[in-house]
């Protein structure tokens, strides 16, 4: 074993490389361990020519290696140069299998059996993990690949896909596209495709019926040779032609490896990250974690952290992070002058939800937040505005306008706006500053991150939000103290879509409040479940049984995956008993609901078909996932003449690409739900956007701002298939010049052929995510609706569409 190096860096991606370059510049003895034969494997595996983005733009790059947006090849070449210029000591083919020892004397064992001694370790291994490899002889041949970036790279080949999960099936379907003329075989060790999504399996079966793919079950590879593959089948060995093997056998996530060193994570769930100090040190002294593994998926962050972590290891404790100036800018508008760290401390000590937050996390949250001074009386937000950010009161207090002229204060250290955060619904009340105040606005993404990473913050937010939700529902002079017994016994229950919370006829007196998602209320009338009501988040149900003592008179089930808060009947009754006004208000609400139920029942007797149609339409809408929609395009096919002017209008109102597919999608009783964005309450697309460019706008629209890196996560996460990855076509000649002179492709999205022919020489636009933004910023509103000549297209929320007025009209 050689002399210990000062720092060993594991992983040569942007973070690790930048760290190694800094170590080299500082003259520290170091080693950069890379398991493959090239630097930065994750980016190396990007498809050829992929355009890599350099977001966030506001962040300065602080690294001894260069980086700017550009093609994959250019970036990799520059890094190779920089590694050489900085005299970085790289060891290739060094896959680390074990780390032992402690700070000052670590031993790093590689797969080849070498042992490297190091005083400190920087882990920069990313989150990709290691793909499981083929185990049969010949598994080291170069025509075995472990991912398919672009199916179009493969044409006219014999391709065998090994692996029966979603990844394998999707790759197989991708390369089996007709136009590519590949002959595709997929191998499955077992009899069925139990691990894959039903949709993928049915697509695969269809592809087999069409002759596009051949499926071999109970078959596995036995020997790989150039051009040929020997299979082990139930009926004996068989040799097939094969010049490319795509192996999708899953991968080992790096977490187990990281934990084996004794490093603690913030929690058990998949989103958890290693616990880190402000200097990126883990719970094991001497081991540092940076980059994607630390929760920073963007290249620039990674490179900056590489630089910083080595400076910290070298004892430069005075170094301020590269985001210092961004944070300074966030605090710049406040009336008092304090340094960034003073402000951070100020917020951490003043605000309850920040109490358990580490300084490093605090910096991160503040970057996604705003702080502002509000003079007394200034409005923070108004009732019914869309908004999902969370506000915290650092100084002063806020006033909630519960009814015109009546306000309730919220004290310093507390929060407001949490209803929008949790349910995704519009703001419930207008909020003003009660005195000259300082408020922090935390974006929804940052707030969710905060709740996931800091259990203390999560508890405070949930407790407060439940109290507020109840106060809002049951008005009438109720105070937080009255609610204490109810809130203490409350329980949050997750309900999967379609599952009933209450069944008609059940005994029970629990009351439920919908925290997120939505519910449908059904009643069995004449042997058929009849839709009575749609309950959006923020509504409550179950109160009838408490008041009457009778069994449940209707079934309530989740329209989408939802969360409800269960309040015990006894606690609820005690609350009502304490406040007669609340009891009265609740009884009025119950009477209204009961009257509507009996209205529907009476109509069912006389206008059975109208009620059935209303009920079936409601079920269809819920089945199509519109239960989580806030604003969806619905087409009446009694009116739609198929002119596709909606699609053309969409393309022409944006940069030439349509965000909706009118014809695709399901139809029931001539009501058509086209493939177009529904602006979900909790948008699936937002869940994993590395540059965080998907937001909810002031009109409730879910839109993408500039800065998409084209990763496609949102497209894959959208269950409704409404996001496309597409490059903008070149600008086309104006409408008059098309009408009068026939120039250009005319209104609507130009054909790919025209786009290709008219793309300026040498310009290869990058494909980015394209989704409906509800024509954000256009004074006229959604173009699809404006441009419909017959009135077939409207945009509505489910509760607007399924109003009782509809039934009244239909039933006459």
């Amino acid at each position, binding site marked *: 074993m050689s002399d210990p190096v000062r720092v060993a860096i594991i992983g040569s991606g942007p973070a690790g490389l930048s760290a190694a370059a800094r170590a080299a510049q500082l003259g520290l003895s170091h080693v950069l361990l890379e398991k493959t034969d090239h630097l930065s494997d994750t980016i190396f595996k990007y498809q050829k020519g992929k355009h890599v983005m350099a977001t966030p733009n506001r962040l300065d790059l602080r690294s001894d290696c260069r980086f700017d947006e550009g093609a994959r090849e250019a970036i990799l070449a520059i890094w190779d140069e920089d590694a050489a210029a900085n005299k970085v000591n790289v060891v290739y083919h060094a896959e680390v299998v074990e780390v032992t020892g402690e700070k000052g004397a670590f031993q790093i064992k590689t797969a080849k059996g070498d042992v490297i001694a190091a005083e400190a370790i920087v882990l920069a291994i990313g989150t990709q993990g290691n793909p499981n490899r083929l185990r049969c002889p010949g598994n080291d041949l170069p025509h075995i690949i472990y991912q398919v970036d672009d199916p179009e790279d493969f044409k006219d080949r014999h391709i065998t896909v090994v692996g029966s999960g979603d990844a394998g099936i999707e790759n197989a379907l991708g390369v089996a596209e007709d136009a590519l003329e590949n002959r595709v075989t997929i191998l499955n060790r077992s009899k069925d495709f139990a691990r894959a999504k039903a949709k993928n399996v049915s697509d695969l079966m*269809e592809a087999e*019926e*069409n*002759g596009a793919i051949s499926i071999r079950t109970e078959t596995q590879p036995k020997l790989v040779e150039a051009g040929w593959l020997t299979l082990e089948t139930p009926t004996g060995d068989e040799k097939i032609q094969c010049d490319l093997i795509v192996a999708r056998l899953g991968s080992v996530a790096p977490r187990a490896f990281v934990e084996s060193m004794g490093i603690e994570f913030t929690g058990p769930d998949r989103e958890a990250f290693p616990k880190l100090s402000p200097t990126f040190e883990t719970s094991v002294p001497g081991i540092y974690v940076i980059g994607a593994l630390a929760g920073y998926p963007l290249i620039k962050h990674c490179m900056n952290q590489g630089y910083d972590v080595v400076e910290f290891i070298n004892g430069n404790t005075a170094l301020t992070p590269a985001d210092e100036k961004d944070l300074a800018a966030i605090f710049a*508008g406040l*009336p008092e002058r304090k340094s960034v760290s003073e402000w951070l401390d100020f917020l951490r000590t003043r605000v309850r939800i920040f109490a358990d937050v580490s300084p490093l996390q605090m910096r991160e949250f503040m970057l996604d937040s705003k*702080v*502002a001074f*509000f*003079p007394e009386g200034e409005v*923070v937000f*108004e009732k*019914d*505005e869309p*908004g999902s950010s969370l506000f915290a009161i650092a100084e002063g207090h806020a006033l909630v306008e519960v009814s015109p002229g009546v306000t309730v204060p919220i004290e310093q250290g507390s929060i407001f706006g949490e209803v929008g955060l949790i349910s995704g619904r519009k703001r419930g009340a207008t909020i003003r500053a009660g005195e000259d105040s300082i408020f922090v606005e935390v974006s929804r993404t940052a707030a969710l991150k905060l709740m996931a990473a800091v259990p203390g913050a999560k508890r405070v937010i949930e407790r407060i939000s439940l109290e507020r939700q109840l106060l809002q529902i049951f008005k009438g002079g109720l105070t937080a103290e009255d609610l204490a017994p109810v809130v203490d016994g409350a329980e949050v229950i997750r309900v999967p879509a379609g599952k009933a919370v209450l069944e008609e006829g059940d005994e029970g007196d629990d009351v439920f409040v919908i925290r997120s998602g939505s519910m449908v209320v059904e009643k069995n009338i004449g042997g058929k479940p009849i839709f009575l009501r749609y309950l959006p988040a923020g509504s409550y149900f179950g109160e009838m049984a408490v008041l009457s003592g009778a069994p449940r008179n209707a079934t309530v089930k989740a329209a989408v995956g939802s969360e409800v808060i269960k309040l015990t009947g006894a606690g609820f009754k005690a609350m009502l008993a304490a406040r007669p006004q609340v009891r009265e208000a609740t009884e009025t609400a119950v009477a209204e609901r009961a009257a509507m139920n009996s209205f529907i029942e009476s109509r069912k007797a006389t206008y059975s078909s109208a009620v059935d149609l209303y009920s079936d339409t409601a079920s269809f809408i819920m089945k199509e996932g519109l239960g989580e929609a806030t604003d969806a395009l*619905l087409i*009446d*096919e*009694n*009116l*739609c*003449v*198929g002119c596709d*002017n909606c699609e*053309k*209008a969409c393309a022409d*109102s944006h940069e030439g690409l349509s965000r909706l*597919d009118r*014809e695709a*999608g*399901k*139809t029931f009783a*001539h009501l*058509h739900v086209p493939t177009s964005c529904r602006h979900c309450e909790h948008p699936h697309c937002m869940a994993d956007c590395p540059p965080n460019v998907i937001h909810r706008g*002031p*009109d409730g629209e879910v839109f993408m701002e500039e800065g998409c890196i084209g990763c496609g996560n949102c497209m894959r996460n959208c269950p409704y298939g409404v996001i496309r990855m597409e490059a903008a076509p070149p600008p086309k000649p104006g*409408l008059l010049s098309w*009408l009068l002179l026939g120039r250009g492709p005319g209104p609507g999205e130009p054909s790919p052929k025209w786009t290709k022919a008219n793309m300026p020489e040498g310009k290869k636009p990058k494909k980015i995510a394209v989704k409906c933004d*509800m*024509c954000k*910023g*256009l*004074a*006229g*509103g959604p173009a699809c*609706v*404006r*441009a*419909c*000549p*017959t*009135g*077939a297209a*409207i*945009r*509505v929320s489910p509760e*607007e*569409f399924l*109003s009782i007025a509809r039934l009244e*009209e239909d039933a006459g």
Partner: protein
Amino acid sequence: MATLFRRRRATATQTERVRERRHEGFLRHANFRWAKVSGGLCLLVILSYALIDVSPRPNGGSWYGYTLGTIGALLILWLTALGYRKRRMTSDFWSLKAWTSAHVYLGLSLIVIATWHTGFQLGWNVHTLAWALMMLVILSGLYGVAVYALLPQALSNNRDQMTQMQMLEAIRAFDRQLHAAAQPLPPGEAAPVLASLEQDPFAGGIRARLTGRYPNRATAAARAALTEAVGGDAEARAKVVALLTQKEAALARLREHLRLRALLEIWLYVHVPLTFALIAALSAHIISVFFYW
């Protein structure tokens, strides 16, 4: 003191203006607003025509005739502008449905405005040509209104949640399966199947497109031939017959889809060119009347 927050827009938004909670067709738009406007206009024309005594007799050249003529000519130009409005995606607020509604009802009012403008003096001249062309445009428009009201339901029922691309793809998929399934058949039986594979499902031109009756019936013929055949590989043949039946159904669906779409569009090929002919004749009419002065 200004705040750092960019203030969100205060209250409800511009999109509320186009927000409708229910589907309402262009004919019923805004509770028949344009039907009422148009009806009122016609009534006004008819009444005033009866009440105003133009001497020597009602004529396009009287002051009253000029008034109606000007209204009519401007209306025609405005009605023509629908084609531009439909394609011009400006960002301000307008509803094409409202435009269509007005287009239909005001277009119908031209029957009264222009006819009463003539003072019922029709003859074999360029003036009456303009009138006749206008009536033809209106007639074709009436056809359009009728098919817009009647056919969308049939289009929706026929496509049964499939897109046109999926219909085409389904036929291609059956062709691929037929190709594989027909391999074991003897040449005599394979030939009609091959003919079905080779047929162009769209041959037959505009006539076939509009009637849905196509001259090429190779698939039906193949099915008939194979259903009657005996001997040989009966199992393979049954599979091919089943596939041919499915292909026939898929073809029928696609052809019906194309037929309905054609019926929904064909009238525009009359309506629009006739409109331009009308504008030409109208120009000739207007220029020529100045010589009567």
